[in-house]
């Protein structure tokens, strides 16, 4: 259950980025006394104060037998001598080795970080390129739309032509039909008229017409003779 009345993420995140580790630790003098102790006594007793305190304390412990000197003291002295000598001799080498290990760890971590950053950068570049490519799709769609429009137009025109041809054929048929009818009527009528006229010419009329023609011809020949 999330109480949304409580405001979330109002402050700057305090853990990121993580502050780097301090370079050196607190100062320690003689291996086991922190430097702050010397600084604490400096205003009142100067530089030798803590050493006087240490000497006095040591003498007090020894004289009052709070620190007992027995066989263990000899053993502790020898062991401490060896340890101090070893540290003084091999200390810097060990420190350098440890520092090298640390450096390698840091370098590998840093390399990983840089590699990741690089990969992400290339991914960003690729993404930008993809976006640029997606813009080109507009042109592709325009071309396709033009294609489709052209196809539609061509189809429409084809059909228009078909319609025109069909209508023309039908009209031509009607025209040819009418012409044929008229021609047939004309022929039939001419034939009928000729037949009737030939029938109506009786032999009597034929003789009369022939006699008339001969008279006409004679008259004509007389006039022709005259002109010549």
């Amino acid at each position: 259950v999330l109480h949304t009345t409580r405001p979330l993420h109002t402050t700057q995140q305090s853990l990121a980025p993580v502050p780097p580790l301090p370079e050196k630790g607190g100062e320690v003098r003689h291996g086991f006394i922190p430097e702050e102790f010397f600084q604490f006594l400096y205003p009142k007793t100067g530089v030798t104060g803590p050493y006087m305190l240490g000497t006095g304390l040591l003498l007090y412990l020894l004289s009052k037998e709070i620190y007992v000197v027995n066989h263990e003291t000899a053993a502790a002295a020898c062991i401490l001598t060896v340890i101090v000598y070893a540290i003084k001799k091999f200390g810097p080498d060990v420190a350098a080795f440890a520092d090298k290990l640390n450096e390698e760890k840091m370098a590998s971590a840093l390399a990983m970080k840089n590699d990741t950053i690089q990969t992400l950068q290339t991914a960003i570049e690729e993404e930008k390129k993809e976006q640029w490519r997606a813009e080109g799709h507009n042109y592709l769609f325009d071309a396709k739309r033009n294609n489709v429009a052209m196809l539609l137009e061509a189809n429409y025109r084809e059909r228009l032509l078909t319609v025109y041809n069909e209508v023309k054929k039908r009209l031509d048929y009607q025209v040819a039909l009418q012409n044929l009818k008229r021609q047939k009527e004309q022929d039939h009528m001419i034939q009928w008229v000729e037949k009737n006229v030939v029938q109506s010419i009786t032999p009597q009329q034929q003789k009369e017409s022939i006699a008339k023609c001969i008279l006409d011809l004679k008259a004509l020949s007389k006039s022709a003779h005259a002109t010549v």
Partner: protein
Amino acid sequence: LPAAVLLKDTKLMDVKLGQLGSWLAMRDFTPGGILGAFRRGHERYYNKYINVRKGGLGGLSMVLAGYIVLSYMWSYSHI
């Protein structure tokens, strides 16, 4: 005038000698409080001497010296 800090919130080094008794009485002595005190002390020491880039010998040797002193004190009666 700056507001006076409550005795409860003063650090040990700022407590006057006469107030030491009352200051001690005000400290948190519940188990959780004692655990918190141990944790705070450990964190202070750890972050100052050990959790650094170039740690020195002092961080470890101070712990050993304290251990030596403490074990001497505990085994004093056997000597």
